[in-house]
């Protein structure tokens, strides 16, 4: 075997035994570092999982949503507005939708209510998000619930519940199905029902809806068509699907970014601790290095030894941290960070997240955690390697 390779194997072997000899100190550093990496990795994994989940769910959303605005607030939009859009070439369909919120005073919960027209082109996408086989479009008085909403309404085993109309009369509804867990990020508090039922619940006239959903033939024309709609209907707000997706990304990104700043501060504190630990050579360590040098170890060999020690601690902490983070996010539903990262109503989604662990993500984490650790230990390692060999002599 090549002598240079054998030499590095020998130094690695010695580094392992040195780490074991100082296992209390190194174990402490490893655990703290692994905890920091676990936190940073969990945030990154949960953010990318949320963004991906949101992207998948929003793929079924209409390409353009038109809302009527008055005095800066949203109002019901007349269906006649849809007729004025027929002149725009490229629009496949214009469908009314009810999107509102129902506050359940008894349970203190806020549900998102979605009234879906039977002819909505992408309603089948919504139908696919339901567990089991549910007849779609939904029949009158039948609803599909998000899991958190179903749990809050305490429906098991009954399938019937009622909400109050604005005139305080009761509107009965029957549960036809529950949304699949993987869509829970956006469906946790959702109650989907036929458009007519949603109108009935909120007391919205048949000639109106909360939104008009516009479907276009060519997705590349979404922005152009949205601009044309804005010109034809100047009192409306026109939202495109990419804009909504971007909003979700920004929301998750902001929350994650805020938390990441806090965690990077923890990482910086750890780097200072690592510096302190690595630079404060104990008398035994100084003596050991002096002995090794006088026995023929070069400064570069001592540097390699310190790098192996640092690299092994950092590498092991990285593997431990990222593995724990993966289990925390995938199997633990990111329990530690859920309150920070998801949910904007009383009902928190219980997520089933499958973060995409790509090489890019791993390298990014490596760059933010292991590299700073190795960087802050460079000078202490150099200092250690510069211990004069003659200090092993009696003086």
């Amino acid at each position, binding site marked *: 075997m090549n*002598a240079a390779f054998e030499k590095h194997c020998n130094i690695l072997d010695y580094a392992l035994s040195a780490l074991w000899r100082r296992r209390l100190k190194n174990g402490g550093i490893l655990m703290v570092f692994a905890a920091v990496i676990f936190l940073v990795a969990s945030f990154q994994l949960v953010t990318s999982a949320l963004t991906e989940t949101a992207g998948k769910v929003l793929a079924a959303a209409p390409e353009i949503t038109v809302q009527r605005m008055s005095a800066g607030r949203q109002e019901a939009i007349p269906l006649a507005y849809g007729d004025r859009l027929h002149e725009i070439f490229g629009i496949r369909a214009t469908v009314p939708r009810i999107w509102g919120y129902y506050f359940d005073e008894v349970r203190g919960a806020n549900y998102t209510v979605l009234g879906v027209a039977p002819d909505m082109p992408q309603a089948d996408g919504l139908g696919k998000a339901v567990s089991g086989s549910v007849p779609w479009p939904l029949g009158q008085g039948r609803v599909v619930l998000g899991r958190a909403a179903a749990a809050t309404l305490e429906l098991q085993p009954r399938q019937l519940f009622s909400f109050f109309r604005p005139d305080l009369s009761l509107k009965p509804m029957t549960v036809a199905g529950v949304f699949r867990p993987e869509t829970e990020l956006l469906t946790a508090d959702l109650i989907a029902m036929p458009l007519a039922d949603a109108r009935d619940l909120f007391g919205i006239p048949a000639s109106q809806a909360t939104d008009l959903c516009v479907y276009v033939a060519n997705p590349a024309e979404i922005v152009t068509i949205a601009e044309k709609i804005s010109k034809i209907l100047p009192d409306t707000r026109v939202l495109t699907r990419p804009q909504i997706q971007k909003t979700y990304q920004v929301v998750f990104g902001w929350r994650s970014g805020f938390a990441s700043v806090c965690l990077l501060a923890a990482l910086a504190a750890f780097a200072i601790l690592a510096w302190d630990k690595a630079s404060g050579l104990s008398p035994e360590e100084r003596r050991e290095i002096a002995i090794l040098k006088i026995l023929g*170890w070069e400064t570069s060999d001592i540097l390699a030894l310190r790098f192996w020690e640092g690299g092994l601690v950092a590498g092991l902490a990285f593997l431990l941290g990222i593995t724990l983070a993966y289990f925390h996010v995938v199997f633990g539903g990111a329990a530690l960070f859920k309150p920070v990262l998801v949910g904007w109503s009383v009902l928190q989604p219980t997520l089933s997240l499958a973060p995409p662990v790509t090489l890019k993500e791993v390298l990014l984490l490596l760059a933010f955690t292991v590299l700073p650790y190795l960087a802050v230990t460079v000078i202490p390692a150099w200092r250690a390697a510069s211990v004069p060999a003659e200090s*092993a002599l009696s003086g």
Partner: protein
Amino acid sequence: MLIELENVTKVYNQGRSNEVQALTEVSLAIAPQTMVCLKGPSGSGKSTLLSIIGCIFAPTSGRATIAGKPLARLPDRFLTVHRRATIGFIFQRFNILPALSVAENIVLPLLPLGVSPKARRERAGALMDQLAIRHREHFPAGQISGGELQRVAIARALINDPPIILADEPTAHLDSRLSREFMQIMADLKAAGKTIVITSHDPLVTEHAAIDRVIGVKDGRIDVP
């Protein structure tokens, strides 16, 4: 001559307020297969002299040639390479790493040379047999007796088969029995062809029959009586 020093001066921290002149124009020649004792009080410059002979650093001025190589011309890295091929060190208190096993201590000089584990085991085994410490091979060095410890230190100094053995106050912390035992091993090594330089002011060393020459060192100079 295996070791030749000519007008060697060593100044520590040259040009600074804490400048110290440790050696002044020392000239010395040591022939192969001889045993020489450097004798002098603490702070006399013995260890600095030993460091130069041991290729730990080059002199500030003068000429030092060890095993045919002039030290002043060798950059630090090559000084180390030359040291590990030429010199075996035995320290005061032996400087054995107590947490390592006896065998691990002995093979320490071989690690940066890229010697394979098998070859290391063989070479250490032969030396442990020679010095009668094979039965302690896997013992932590911190748990063996003083006599065994000195043999481990000797084995470590010999593992690279260097022509020169340097011993720095080797008997300072040994009783007279172990000191005599140590000197006997040194005598055997000299008979086997090694050149040995010992710093000591212990009469058991300076007056030992195997010592060819005692060189006095005082105030950084060779002390001529």
